[in-house]
């Protein structure tokens, strides 16, 4: 049922364009570059520790944003409720991690 249909959707777009892989490959390359920067910052070993921490956290935040937006489709329409759901989780996590690092760690 689905196999004979593939030729139709490939031949011409009917009601809407089929999304191409380009932006996902861009997201992949971005993730790759952000990962490489993070590993390089640590491997170099000559950078000030606080500055390295800032680089690492910055790269991680950007990579997570890229992956949530593109690969997990959060930038697509109809994702208002998913954003609310995941945001609650993220708010609780930030509270917990900041408590752990502020009250216990230091």
């Amino acid at each position, binding site marked *: *049922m*689905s*196999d004979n*249909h*593939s030729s*139709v*959707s*490939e031949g011409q777009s*009917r*009601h*809407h364009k*089929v*999304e191409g*892989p380009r932006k*996902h*490959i861009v997201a*992949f390359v971005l*993730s*790759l570059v952000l*990962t490489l920067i*993070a*590993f390089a*910052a*640590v*491997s170099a070993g000559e950078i000030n*520790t606080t500055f*390295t*921490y800032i680089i*690492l*956290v910055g*790269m*991680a935040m950007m*990579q*997570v944003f890229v*992956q*949530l937006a593109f*690969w*997990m*489709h959060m930038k697509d*329409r*109809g994702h208002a*409720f*998913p954003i609310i*759901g*995941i*945001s*609650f*989780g*993220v708010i*609780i*996590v930030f509270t*917990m*991690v900041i*408590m*752990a*690092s502020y009250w*216990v*760690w230091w």
Partner: protein
Amino acid sequence: MSAHQHAEGLLSHEPEKATAEGRNKILGFWLFLGAETVLFGTLFSAFVALRHNVGDGPTASELFELPTVFAATMILLFSSLMSVFAVQAMHRHQVKAMIGWLVATVVLGLGFLGLEIYEFNTYVSEGHKMNTSAFSSSFYTLVGFHGAHVAFGVLWITLLILQILKKGLTVVTAPKIYVSAIYWHFIDVVWVFIFTVVYLMGKVAG
């Protein structure tokens, strides 16, 4: 979102959103991921608080080998990309290509697990056991929990491949593929924080 006036028996462009049940499944899965975020958050905050309490055991910077961690990171990132391609093939209704990408996702997931087992085995032989220190316990709990999620994902996606082979791509099976892809990306997102907070920051802290 998409126009749904297609002929009988034909799938819409986004078959995972063709039925209310499919759309509800996706929303419910996002709420589950919110809870998963909290779960990993507790493990992260425990690790961050306890990471310097090494007792007699090795410290993070003595233990971690960045090349191994980098290889694991690359494997998981590629696996996530394979999963993206699987969903794109699904949107084009190319079932064979979709199964191919899903198999690639699973194989890379297994590669990641193999590397993690090898890594943990090396650590144990270097005297970094579950009960060595607060650092080792919180490390194995956090990273092991992530590994367990990868193992579950490998099993889940394998079963979905078998179901697709049996039942084909329908409005019932499509949401399962979509949701498993979201799960797999989430596992990759958690790994981004693990390699940043556990491995790289552990190496920097010295």
